[in-house]
């Protein structure tokens, strides 16, 4: 029975990995679509939302099923607890991708008011954090999600968000016609920053899953 349980737990972890890749992909593609104002790509991201929600629900159902059938202990129960938390964060990350894609649809008729390189920069930093977190979840190797490295990256994200905010304020003061689009930029920066926070929270859960000890990131 134990063998059967561990096979099923492995399959559940694989499902979480697949969901993580989907959520990360939605976020990356959404920012890419925003950058080049690609409506088709934005619509693809929006359509992926349902699949993300299905993953969330299916994994939760299976996690509860494993708990009920096998009453796992120690690292096994911590793994399931971690999975239940991680899928919520992944769902939110994917949904922020969808929200960013909607911004692209809104501003499609206009052009960008500025280059705002910090938005793609934020997206690539968040994308890397999510990759590292998923890798740690899959392999148990915590070296890429050590507390110091993630805290520093999270601080960088905050700084970039603040710089986007100030930059947008100055555009809006110069030309009030940019207010709508700049407000959207500020929102996108805020979404990306939240995704970074979610990556840090997932990392905390993975630390607890692996070691049984609590760590605090940023």
């Amino acid at each position, binding site marked *: *029975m*134990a063998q059967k*349980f*561990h096979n099923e737990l492995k399959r559940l972890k694989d499902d979480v990995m697949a969901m993580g890749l989907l959520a990360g992909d939605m976020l990356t593609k959404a920012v890419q679509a925003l950058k080049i104002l690609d409506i088709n790509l934005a619509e693809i991201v929006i359509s992926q939302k349902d699949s993300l929600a299905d993953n969330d629900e299916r994994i939760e159902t299976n996690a509860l099923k494993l708990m009920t059938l096998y*009453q*796992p*202990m*120690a*690292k*096994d*129960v*911590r793994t399931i607890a971690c999975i239940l938390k991680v899928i919520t964060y992944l769902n939110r990350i994917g949904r922020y991708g969808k929200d960013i894609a909607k911004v692209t649809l809104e501003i499609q008729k206009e052009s960008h008011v500025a280059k705002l390189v910090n938005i793609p920069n934020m997206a690539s930093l968040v994308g890397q954090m999510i990759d590292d977190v998923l890798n740690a979840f899959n392999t148990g190797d915590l070296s890429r999600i050590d507390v110091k490295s993630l805290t520093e990256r999270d601080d960088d994200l905050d700084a970039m968000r603040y710089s986007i905010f100030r930059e947008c304020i100055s555009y809006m003061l110069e030309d009030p016609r940019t207010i709508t689009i700049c407000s959207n930029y500020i929102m996108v920066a805020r979404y990306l920053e939240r995704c970074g926070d979610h990556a840090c929270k997932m990392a905390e859960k993975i630390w607890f899953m692996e070691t*049984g000890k609590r760590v605090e990131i940023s």
Partner: protein
Amino acid sequence: MEKDLHKNGYVIETHDLNLWYGSKQALMDINIKIQRNKVTALIGPSGCGKSTLLRCFNRLNDLIPECKITGEVFFNGKNIYNGSSDIVNIRKNNGMVFQKPNPFPKSIYENVAYGPQTHMIRKKKELDKIVETTLKKAALWEEVNDRLHESALGLSGGQQQRLCIARALSVEPEVILMDEPCSALDPIATGKIENLINELKENYTVVIVTHNMQQAARVSDYAGFMYLGKLIEFDETLKIFENPSNELTENYITGRFG
């Protein structure tokens, strides 16, 4: 916490306890302290020595020929393995409940009254009172008070097991030793015994051997994991089941061996 532990003291303590059945060593250097008014569970795969250890606490292994013991077992600070200890008294103070309910083939009343009678209580009034209070303590009174003089063998398995617990309680022990007390019972009867264990710890110390890890997790305050005659890890139950320190414990409770 540490201070409290010390103040309450330990009912049972072993020092470097070793036990052999003939040439086979069944217990190796066991050092364990059993906390008063708590439930302590011993877990581990078959043959790891948990029942053997339990049986050292009331010298039940004395009955097995070729069994050799070294080391010390203290009950309330006194070594029960020195020559002068009174075995009858040791077993009175450490009541035992076994895997299969084993009531005497007598009436329910006689099962409970047997112990006190042996300990020289003969007055009917006094015995009646003991039978009633003890059956109440064992959460059986309500179910049997109208048929006290019927055969105990007519009771269900779960009721028989609670009768055996009542029989152990009737001589006012300090410790109840339970060797797989629920493994022959259905889930409902098991639930009743588990509730009972939880109530018993107000007045008694319980040591329970169980194969059922979920049961150990539910009922005990402390848990010891044994493997190949050794006590591998002993700690608060939550620690053992949530985040054990030893890899062998982790492997056992997550079903990776055993």
